[in-house]
């Protein structure tokens, strides 16, 4: 069985949030609110009070935009091409990716063509031994593991 005072409290809380117009309330709560309004003077008085604030909220600051602004906004299509018209947007990344891929491939091929032959194993050990011990990038793989 429902508790009338609790129902009234819930109704007043909802009024305080959503105002007096039950059409703005969640659908599931409207029927119970309408029933309460039929039976409770307190509920009706609370709704009347909330409706006063609603009316002021609805009517506040209802000025139309200036004609100067309306003209500027309506002129936007004449002055600003859409992104697709500028040939940018979706095509650009495809090009950029293709160009980057071609450059990377060219770089790899060129490096292979001009790179000196691999040094003998003994010489490679000498090179490792003079690496800067403070440079983490110079550490061998084994030391990192």
């Amino acid at each position, binding site marked *: 069985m429902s508790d009338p005072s609790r129902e009234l409290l819930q109704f007043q809380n909802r009024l305080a949030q959503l*105002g007096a117009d039950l059409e703005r309330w969640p659908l599931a709560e409207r029927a119970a609110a309408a029933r309460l309004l039929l039976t409770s003077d307190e509920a009706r008085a609370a709704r009347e009070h909330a409706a006063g604030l609603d009316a*002021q909220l609805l*009517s506040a600051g209802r000025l139309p*935009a200036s004609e100067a602004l309306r003209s500027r*906004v309506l002129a*936007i*299509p004449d002055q*600003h091409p*859409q992104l*697709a018209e500028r040939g940018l947007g979706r095509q650009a990344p495809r090009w950029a990716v293709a160009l980057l891929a071609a450059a990377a491939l060219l770089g790899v091929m060129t490096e292979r063509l001009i790179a000196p032959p691999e040094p003998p194993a003994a010489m490679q050990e000498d090179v490792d031994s003079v690496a800067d011990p403070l440079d983490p990038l110079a550490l061998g793989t084994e030391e990192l593991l």
Partner: protein
Amino acid sequence: MLADSRDDSSLVAAVARGDAAAYRTLVERYLDALVRYATRVLRDQSDAEDTAQDTFLRLWQNAASYSPKVSVSAWLHRIAHNAAIDRLRRRRESFDDECELRSPKSTQPYELLTEKRERLSFDTALLSLPARQRAALTLFFQQGLTLSETAQVLETGIESVESLLARGRKNLSKLLGPTDAPHQDSKPAHHRRG
């Protein structure tokens, strides 16, 4: 000239294909509302007009990015909201719910105003609220967005919006004092949905 009867989503799809007439219809439907919202957030008419212009430029150039998962109204308000927040940041103001209530044209906090028993006009009282409360009240009560759409625009949850609305209404009542204004059964200019 006959009014364009296409729904908002169809108009945005047409704008994405370069249909300037569809764009003009959306301007007629939303310009006043977006200027009003930006004015509420920024408390400055000139900045609000620039924000609305930025919003329609984004609409014209990026209509293809619209997803019908959200209403066009919520999407445009979200764009305007982000543009307004950028402007607030440039003015080194925050968009929060923490600052004390104060008159927009005075440095007096709310407590001093009430001590002096100043009767504020409704617009002044609304502009005196913390920014997030102003935004939530405007989106829900004036712009006619649903709770869910208001939450989408403010990037928060529905419970948080309900709390902002309750605190905003309570603070407005405090600022206005006992009201003797007769209430009218008026509706917002835009969509009223449950």
